């Protein structure tokens, strides 16, 4: 019962079920392959999802829509600077993280100084980031340095390296949320910003650090994804806009803010990959695939939220 009360159990349960259904089709063959692919591709969704989760925890109206553009810009500039040359991987990483930091700072300043709603501010800023990415390299795909590409596609103890990064980040975020003062501040701000401010929580510092974190995560995800798939492309971030929000909601984090759930983000990230793989494996047509994905997502969200209601 206590296990069933955990909001993340639904995402993990759904991921396990879709995994079993897909493997059932091949009577067990390819289970390892599928798990490995799910961990690889789930990692990117999990990294951006963790960032989006922090922002959504800030309370109603807080969401970062500039994630795809930040990913694209960070990856484009990092790969251009590395220019496929060996030994530049750390330089590229620094650039990607710096771009993420800059984007986060811009987003937050737009929200703070112009008093724009975060949805508008991040959407408008994302047009600028995307244009910068286009302008800086006109969509040319530059290959990552060989060693970096090997790292991004490689494995360690049978688990993809990118998944290790994603898992490490999840642990960090979990510690920050559950075991640090900052985490308490974030949750308090999300539950009631005014009350938190009156209680002496430095609300603006919390907001600033959250918007910085999500963009830095997006920069990291862009860097890893470009290294993984052989170069940055202008449309590489597109699917991570809805994905980042979906994994947060499916993972059991409250969309109204003030309540986050780290394990759920990973469960949902695996599920989002596995459900498409399952529908593809069963040969569902595109329209049906979208309808089914939507229906399953709604079902999980309802299941996870009614549980919370009964608590």
């Amino acid at each position, binding site marked *: 019962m206590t296990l069933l009360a955990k909001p993340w159990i639904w995402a993990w349960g759904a991921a396990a079920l879709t995994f079993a259904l897909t493997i059932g089709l091949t009577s067990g063959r390819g289970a390892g392959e*599928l798990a490995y692919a799910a961990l*690889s591709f789930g990692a990117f969704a999990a990294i951006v999802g963790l960032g989006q989760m922090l922002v959504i925890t800030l309370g109603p109206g807080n969401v970062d829509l500039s994630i795809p553009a930040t990913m694209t810009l960070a990856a484009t500039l990092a790969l251009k600077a590395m220019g496929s040359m060996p030994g530049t991987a750390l330089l590229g990483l620094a650039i990607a993280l710096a771009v993420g930091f800059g984007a986060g700072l811009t987003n937050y300043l737009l929200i703070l100084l112009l008093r724009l709603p975060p949805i508008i501010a991040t959407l408008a800023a994302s047009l600028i980031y995307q244009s910068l990415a286009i302008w800086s390299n006109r*969509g040319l795909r530059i290959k990552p340095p060989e060693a970096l590409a090997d790292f991004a596609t490689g494995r360690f103890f049978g688990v993809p390296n990118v998944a290790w990064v994603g898992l490490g980040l999840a642990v960090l975020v979990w510690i920050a949320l559950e075991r640090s003062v900052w985490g308490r501040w974030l949750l308090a701000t999300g539950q009631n910003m005014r009350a938190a401010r009156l209680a002496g929580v430095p609300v603006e510092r919390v907001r600033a650090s959250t918007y910085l974190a999500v963009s830095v995560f997006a920069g990291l995800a862009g860097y890893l994804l470009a290294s993984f798939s052989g170069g940055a492309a202008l449309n590489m971030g597109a699917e991570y806009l809805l994905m980042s929000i979906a994994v947060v909601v499916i993972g059991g984090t409250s969309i109204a803010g003030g309540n986050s759930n780290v394990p759920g983000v990973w469960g949902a990230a695996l599920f989002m990959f596995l459900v498409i793989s399952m529908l593809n494996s069963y040969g569902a047509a595109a329209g049906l695939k979208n309808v089914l994905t939507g229906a399953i997502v709604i079902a999980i969200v309802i299941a996870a939220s009614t549980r919370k209601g009964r608590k």
Partner: protein
Amino acid sequence: MKISTMLIGVASLALCAGGALAGSHLANTADKRIALSNNYAGNSWRQAMLQSWEEMGAAAVADGVVAAADAYTTSESQATEQAAQIQNLILQGYDAIVINAASPTALNGAVKEACDAGVVVVSFDGIVTEPCAWRIAVDFKAMGKSEVEYLATRLPDGGNLLEIRGLAGVFVDDEISAGIHEGVAENDQFEIVGSVHGDWAQDVAQKAVAGILPSLPEIVGVVTQGGDGYGAAQAFKAAGRPTPLIVLGNRQDEMQWWADQRDANGYETLSLSIAPGVSTLAFWVAQQVLAGDEVPKDLTVPFLKITQDTLDETLASTPEGSVANVTYSLEDAQQVIAGAK
């Protein structure tokens, strides 16, 4: 060698001059202004398309062929936004508008307004159905079918195919896929055992293929839509499966991969797509219409096919990370027009 190249140069110059002279019974277009209305710029193909237009447009203005050749791109790829853009271009007094449309039907109202205002409208790639406009269309169905026909020549015994489709719900995706399925129906030694949407992007295709591969039997060939072949190859490699025959789509990273594989193990395949420079073909068609030539309303763009023999040459002329391209000339446009008459 020097002299012979020079001679060829002189000969081609003479041919060009001849072509220009042949066109000289037509009206002068030196004071005409042509605009490009483009709905999307967010991938390497569209970037190359815009670059071709800019380079060729600048040359055409410098040579006094036209007075202006400006490019405009909408930011959100919405049909409503592009319709408003076309209305602006009419007000700005352009003589011709070349369109890569967001939708085949949603712009018809704006296109009709342009025609009524005496503006020549030429649509290409993303065409419009409004009868008053010219259409430079791609036979996407034939493109899909020719992929299967190529596979049939290479794999006479047939086998299982994996189909990578484009963006769900887009007309181009339906057409190419229909052509592929038609080809498979005629070559029944093949069977499509899996189909995924790769959204014409390497990373999306890689993800989708990695997800479906564990449930698939042995795959002999992969039919694609362009921009997805490299991602598919990566997914097969990551799964530790033998690389099947993947039909490619003219992207530089795909061709580089092909060349590497060929050098390593004699890999052979075919690559085909539409050259982004088709925007320049549309420019010359618009110019010819403005000059008073009788141009049929429906024209077809030739595919740019890359084979084992032309791989090295094409690879050398394609900028790293871009897509194989051709810039069309006035003569090319005249040929396409003559072919349709």
